[in-house]
């Protein structure tokens, strides 16, 4: 049914009244000009048609109403609708063409609006494309930076002015792992992490001093100020650190010298320093002892020149000479055997997997015409200290030399190790069986593809402090060149695989931390979205920590700047030094033999404490987990006094009408999948995801800060539970 339009009704009424009034006035005017006869005649004429007159008046009013209605629809309703439609287009992202209606003007206005909508859409699409491209470029740059960082051979750590780490590379991760005092616990993850404080590694005063130095130089407009220092870490390692400022982007209202943070390039020089100290010591001892020996000999010789020397004296002086000469010889021999390796560390030898060197050599040789190289027997566990470029040149030259001199077209590689050296053999089967032709080429300049190098094989071997010879096996038909090259130190090959997670690109940076500063506010006033958290869970032998139940696993993950850091997790099995009740095994899946040989709680808790650092602890039903940690305070001396939030209580704050606040139920409510329910890390990760959702829901209830969250949580019923 069509809507009754009051505007039309009022219009019709007004027109009707006006018509009536006009008729009356005209009638009265005419009436007053007529005489009595005329008036009677008019009255006699009109009286019988009065009803007809009123009917006509009503009909004409109806016609006016229809006309008015049409006019209103045409000139007023259509623009009003147009306005509403335009309002919708303005207020939302709806994309549609408006239907022209109403007057001509209204139609052309609709057309115009349609064109504007079209234009807006085009602009929006262009803008979207630009934003997308910019975002893509930014992402690319970030990836490039991350890739660059991960390839750098120096450790790089970038911090904001509070000392919070906002970027680090894999090298730093490995290096800091080695600095850890508890490397065997959870892979020593406690020292480095986004949002973590660098002062956990370096002395605060030392860094502050270096920062002040840089700031001072910045104020004096030094072009690229940096500070360098050497420091000893808590675990006794020696680090050379170079600090450079991260300057604020120059804006009109900002001083260009303002610092936003700093970059630390660190190098572990413990080995280098030890080697240098040893060399220094050896050189000093040698000098001093030789001086003393020569002095003894010289004085003895001077005395021997006296003509009237008694035979006994003469004999004892000769004895001195013999003894000192022998002593000198022994010292030089000793020096050669013990320390020359140390001196060689000055050469730029790099650690390389022997198999990689062999592979590179094979590729090079196969690129030569008429010659094929293959592996014969390669020990893949051998790590060598080599200058790979020159060594590869030498090997390739030798292969070519053998090809030309002996006519062989296939060579093979053998790699093994002795106690002190790696043994790399370039083997071939000589064609000429009749005569064993030794190949002398040690002093030949290395020549490859007609290009002559200034190096000889001997030079290359000397650079490696190695040895080289040609040999023809008496049994068997193989001939070979053998290189002895130094082995790389075993500890220098570890960790790479353990620390490099194979998953997606690591979350090693968070530049938003440049803006963060917690110094000015107390923790209670800090926003929940800005704090750093360690979300953790423990698996235990039972539910009564005070009655002797022990922790058997701790898992934890960090949240920094509202992001879950999947790269920064803590997962450690613990030897409970008691039996694990069979009834609990189906729950946590930890068999007794899994905890055998694992570190005990006294070793794990200090490392976990360091991992937690100054973050806020979060757990589901935290009262239980905290109780587990607290009963160990006396035994371990580690006190967890960090602030604690409980997702169980917070869930009760957000959903007071729900019956269950078990982790599974909450996860289901938030559509979160739990991977590895009832493993400590799996539960910790699920709790962390739940916690991130809870932060949003708490904000809807006006709970933004740590203090507000704690007060709200304490009020809930569940807060009364005690373990």
């Amino acid at each position, binding site marked *: 049914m069509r809507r009754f339009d009051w505007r039309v009704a009022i219009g019709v009424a007004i027109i009707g009244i006006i018509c009536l009034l006009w008729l009356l006035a005209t009638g009265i005017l005419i009436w007053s000009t007529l005489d009595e006869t005329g008036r009677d005649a008019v009255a006699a004429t009109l009286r019988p048609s009065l009803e007809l007159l009123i009917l006509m008046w009503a009909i004409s009013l109806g016609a006016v109403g229809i006309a008015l209605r049409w006019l209103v629809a045409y000139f007023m309703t259509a623009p009003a609708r147009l306005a509403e439609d335009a309002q919708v287009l303005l207020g939302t992202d709806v994309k549609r063409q408006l239907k022209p209606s109403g007057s001509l003007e209204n139609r052309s206005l609709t057309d115009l609006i349609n064109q504007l909508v079209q234009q807006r859409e085009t602009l929006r699409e262009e803008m979207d494309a630009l934003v997308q491209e910019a975002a893509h470029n930014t992402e690319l740059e970030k990836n490039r930076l991350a890739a660059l960082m991960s390839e750098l051979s120096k450790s790089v750590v970038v911090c904001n002015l509070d000392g919070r780490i906002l970027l680090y590379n894999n090298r730093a991760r490995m290096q800091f792992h080695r600095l850890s005092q508890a490397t065997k616990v959870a892979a020593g993850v406690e020292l480095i992490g986004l949002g973590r404080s660098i002062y956990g590694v370096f002395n605060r005063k030392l860094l502050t001093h270096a920062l002040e130095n840089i700031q001072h130089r910045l104020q004096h407009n030094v072009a690229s100020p940096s500070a360098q220092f050497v420091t000893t870490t808590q675990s006794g390692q020696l680090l050379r650190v170079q600090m450079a400022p991260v300057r604020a982007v120059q804006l009109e209202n900002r001083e260009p010298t303002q610092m936003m943070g700093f970059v630390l390039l660190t190098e572990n020089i413990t080995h280098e320093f030890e080697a240098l100290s040893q060399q220094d010591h050896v050189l000093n001892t040698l000098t001093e002892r030789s001086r*003393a020996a020569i002095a003894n000999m010289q004085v003895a010789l001077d005395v021997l020149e006296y003509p009237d020397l008694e035979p006994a004296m003469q004999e004892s002086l000769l004895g001195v000479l013999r003894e000192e000469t022998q002593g000198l010889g022994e010292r030089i021999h000793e020096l050669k055997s013990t320390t020359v390796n140390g001196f060689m560390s000055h050469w730029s030898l790099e650690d390389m997997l022997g198999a990689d060197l062999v592979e590179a050599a094979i590729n090079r040789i196969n690129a030569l015409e008429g010659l094929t190289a293959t592996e014969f027997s390669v020990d893949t566990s051998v790590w060598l200290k080599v200058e790979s470029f020159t060594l590869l040149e030498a090997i390739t030259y030798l292969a070519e030399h053998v090809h030309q001199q002996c006519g062989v077209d296939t060579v093979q590689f053998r790699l093994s190790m002795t106690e002190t050296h790696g043994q790399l053999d370039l083997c071939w089967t000589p064609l000429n069986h009749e005569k064993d032709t030794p190949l002398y080429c040690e002093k030949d300049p290395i020549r490859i593809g007609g290009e002559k190098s200034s190096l000889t094989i001997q030079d290359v071997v000397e650079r490696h402090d190695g040895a080289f010879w040609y040999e023809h096996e008496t049994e068997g038909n193989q001939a070979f060149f053998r290189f002895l090259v130094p082995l790389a130190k075993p500890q220098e090959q570890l960790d790479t695989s353990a620390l490099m997670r194979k998953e997606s690109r690591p979350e090693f940076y968070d530049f938003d931390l440049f803006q963060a500063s917690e110094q000015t506010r107390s923790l209670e006033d800090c926003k929940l979205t800005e704090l750093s958290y360690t979300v953790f869970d423990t698996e235990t032998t039972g539910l009564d920590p005070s009655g002797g139940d022990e922790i058997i696993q701790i898992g934890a993950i960090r949240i920094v700047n509202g992001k879950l850091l999947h790269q920064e997790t803590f997962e450690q099995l613990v030897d409970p030094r008691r039996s694990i009740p069979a009834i609990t095994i189906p729950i946590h899946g930890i068999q007794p033999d899994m905890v055998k040989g694992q570190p005990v709680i006294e070793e794990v808790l200090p490392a976990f404490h360091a991992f937690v650092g100054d973050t806020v602890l979060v757990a589901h039903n935290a009262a239980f987990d905290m109780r587990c940690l607290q009963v160990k305070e006396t035994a371990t001396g580690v006190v967890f006094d960090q602030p604690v939030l409980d997702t169980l209580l917070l869930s009760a704050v957000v959903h007071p009408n729900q019956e269950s606040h078990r982790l599974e139920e909450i996860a289901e409510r938030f559509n979160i999948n739990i991977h590895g329910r009832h493993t400590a890390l799996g539960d910790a990760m699920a709790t962390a995801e739940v916690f991130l959702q809870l932060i949003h829901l708490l904000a809807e209830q006006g709970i933004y800060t740590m203090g507000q969250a704690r007060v709200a949580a304490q009020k809930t019923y569940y807060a009364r539970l005690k373990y």
Partner: protein
Amino acid sequence: MSETILIADDEKNILISLEFLMKREGYVVVVAHDGQEAIDAISKEHPDLVLLDVMMPKKTGFDVCQEVRANPDLKDTLILMLTAKGRDTDIAKGLAMGANGYVIKPFSTRELAQKVRDMLDQA
């Protein structure tokens, strides 16, 4: 009366020759084989000059030097350090500890004898 010289060195190989040489030069010679022996001998014999090795067991030549200079009875004893330690810093330390001279091994016996003579004459 001829002057007394104490030779303190743990190397018997140099003691034999130096003892012979100094006796030939006309001095009365006393020998010591380590730092403590040297101090005892200095207190007992009051030598006019000590040829003192630096690296000795029990007490180093630097320690001996310091103790002698700290003792009012002995502080005028002339000390000539004989040492294989040739770094500038060691020489500076020896002189700072109170040595009157410093001879780096190896040395020429003629020059050593001359140096001892000069020091005794100047005293």
